């Protein structure tokens, strides 16, 4: 049982480049999330989705876009990368949106120089 899988594990981008962080889950969870974690800080919610075709902004959505065409996949798009987007990105899923723990992937470490 793979759970939540994120690719790539590491990536270095130059300022202004774009990339897509991939996330897929095999638990048939409707709810999926993207968080970022800066050094010494907690996780901040970027975007979330309550099902295929439905997404909404979290706490720190600027500079990112998401799509949810299937239950399994929830890619995160970075357009015009900036040094402030240097972070570790975690994708997560849950069975319910409330009263249900998050299942996290192992993260993507992104550096923008």
């Amino acid at each position, binding site marked *: 049982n793979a759970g*939540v899988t994120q690719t790539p594990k590491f990536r270095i981008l130059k300022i202004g480049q774009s990339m897509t962080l991939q996330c897929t889950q095999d638990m048939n969870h409707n709810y999926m*999330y993207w*968080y970022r974690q800066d050094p*010494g*800080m*907690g*996780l*901040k*919610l970027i975007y*979330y989705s*309550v099902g295929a075709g439905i997404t909404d902004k*979290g706490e720190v959505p600027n500079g990112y876009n998401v799509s949810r065409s299937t239950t399994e996949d929830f890619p995160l798009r970075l357009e015009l990368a900036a040094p402030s987007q240097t972070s570790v990105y*975690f994708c*997560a899923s849950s069975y*319910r*949106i*409330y*009263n*249900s*723990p*998050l*299942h*996290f*992937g*192992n*993260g993507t470490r992104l550096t923008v120089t």
Partner: protein
Amino acid sequence: DQQVKQNSPSLSVQEGRISILNCDYTNSMFDYFLWYKKYPAEGPTFLISISSIKDKNEDGRFTVFLNKSAKHLSLHIVPSQPGDSAVYFCAASAQTNAGKSTFGDGTTLTVKP
């Protein structure tokens, strides 16, 4: 305004002793609380949770206590083991906020043999 605070960035305890990790919150609408454990280069994993209708929840060596009047929760690990060395995140959610979790900044626990 940080709604979930873990005021101790680090904690060091001897193997076999009790570890107590603390978490304070400011939003009185929070009604579901979780603890996650994170090892380096991995995603957070769910440890234990508590609903606001309870003041204690126990799972093996892990117990979470909730004091709603003080807006405080704590995680007790007894006895502590070297494998418990990790970063512990406190998270809180509110049904009125679509259940989205707000995380603290984490406490790094080191258990010395």
